[in-house]
């Protein structure tokens, strides 16, 4: 423990004490209050409210409604942060040869066969979580990470070669990721584009009928609400997240030799 560490420790301890004091002194209201914040109550009252459709997202689940509708632009840029990170990782490891030397052994035949049987089940449960995002807990990101787990499992159990041979090379995965994001983008401006074409007022991220904007996404599909844009957002997000996370995992698990080979034929201009 040198002097520097002591200084850091003391300043962090001061910060912690200050934070604790603020909380104890009621800076954030009473601890475990009975009253709900007014804004939260507004969301809960409006998340599924066909009697006041102007502020409603037509989604049974308040969290998904806030994430994709009330604060849709947050989530759009959140998913673009993930995009930036994944493209950044593949930029960092650019120039590797995908097929050379990647382990093609995988695990034993028993595990492979078991994984085969499991794969459609994992896929469909991920899809189910995404499709029901606006009805039950869950949503696009959750479903997408389920599916990504399957791809990671396949690449561990069967080897990366197998996954690549089945058409899921990193460049294809990147394109899938882009396609999912473009789907999200298209959904978010769909009504705006329709509005611009027909000369009607519309908003970016518009979902249902809003003040001074009469366009609306389909609120019902058969016997359940769709939450308008929420269904499409969830499905596209699931695709994007599944492709993105498995891409990042594959790139990060590349072996040393491949990366070093890419480093040697470096391209560093200043």
């Amino acid at each position, binding site marked *: 423990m040198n002097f520097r560490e002591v200084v850091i420790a003391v300043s962090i301890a001061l910060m912690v004490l200050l934070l604790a004091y603020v909380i104890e002194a009621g800076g954030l209201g009473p601890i475990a209050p009975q009253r709900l914040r007014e804004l939260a109550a507004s969301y809960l009252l409006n998340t599924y409210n066909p009697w006041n459709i102007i502020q409603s997202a037509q989604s049974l689940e308040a969290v998904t409604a806030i994430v994709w509708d009330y604060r849709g632009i947050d989530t759009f840029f959140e998913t673009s942060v993930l995009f930036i990170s994944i493209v950044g990782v593949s930029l960092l490891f650019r120039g590797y040869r995908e097929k050379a030397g990647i382990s093609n052994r995988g695990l*034993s035949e*028993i595990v*492979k066969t078991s994984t085969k049987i499991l794969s*459609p089940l994992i*896929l469909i449960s991920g899809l189910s979580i995404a499709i029901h995002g606006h009805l039950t807990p869950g949503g696009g990101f959750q479903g997408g990470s389920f599916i990504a787990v399957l791809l990671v499992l396949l690449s561990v159990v069967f080897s990366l070669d197998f996954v690549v041979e089945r058409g899921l090379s990193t460049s294809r995965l990147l394109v899938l990721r882009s396609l999912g994001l473009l789907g999200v983008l298209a959904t978010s401006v769909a009504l705006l584009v329709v509005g611009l074409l027909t000369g009607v007022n519309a908003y970016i991220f518009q979902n249902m009928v809003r003040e001074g904007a009469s366009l609306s996404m389909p609120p019902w599909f058969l016997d359940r609400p769709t939450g308008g844009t929420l269904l499409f957002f969830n499905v596209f997000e699931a695709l994007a997240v599944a492709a993105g996370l498995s891409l990042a995992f594959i790139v990060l698990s590349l072996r040393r030799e491949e990366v070093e080979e890419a480093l040697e034929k470096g391209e560093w201009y200043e």
Partner: protein
Amino acid sequence: MSRALSYLAVFSMTYSFYIVFSGTTSLFSLVLGSLGSILVTVLVKSLLISRELSLSDIRRLTYLVLYYIYYMAVAEVRAHIDIAKIVLSRKINISPAIVKIPYYVETNYGMTLVAGSITNTPGTIVIQVDTGRKYFYVHWLVAKTFEPARAREDISTSFEKYSQKIFG
């Protein structure tokens, strides 16, 4: 025809799992789920099925059910009682060994079913499988013999009989 049947088999497995997983029978879920299941079926069919199915496979499915009941009822109960005795006895009395046993089923599914049954009965675990020469290497908690053929009789004969009928 047989091709459609294999698609149908994968589809029905996926779709029934979907219904159980999502837990609703609303039209919304059923319709979207069937679309999703069709997508999944198209994606994974070639991974799952290498040989197209035929109608005779229905008979095999019945065997699978029978096998499952037999397996749960007899082999598991015996093995569980054995391991309970071992664990609860005053002095742990075991003779662990890794023995080699041959198998004769043709397909990977059959092999996996046999290996899975062996592993799932407490007291025996498949440690390694040699698909070229068709041997399992089994860790046996209370080894009675080290002879491959005799060990096979003790461990896997009954599993293999049904497995051969189901998957060939």
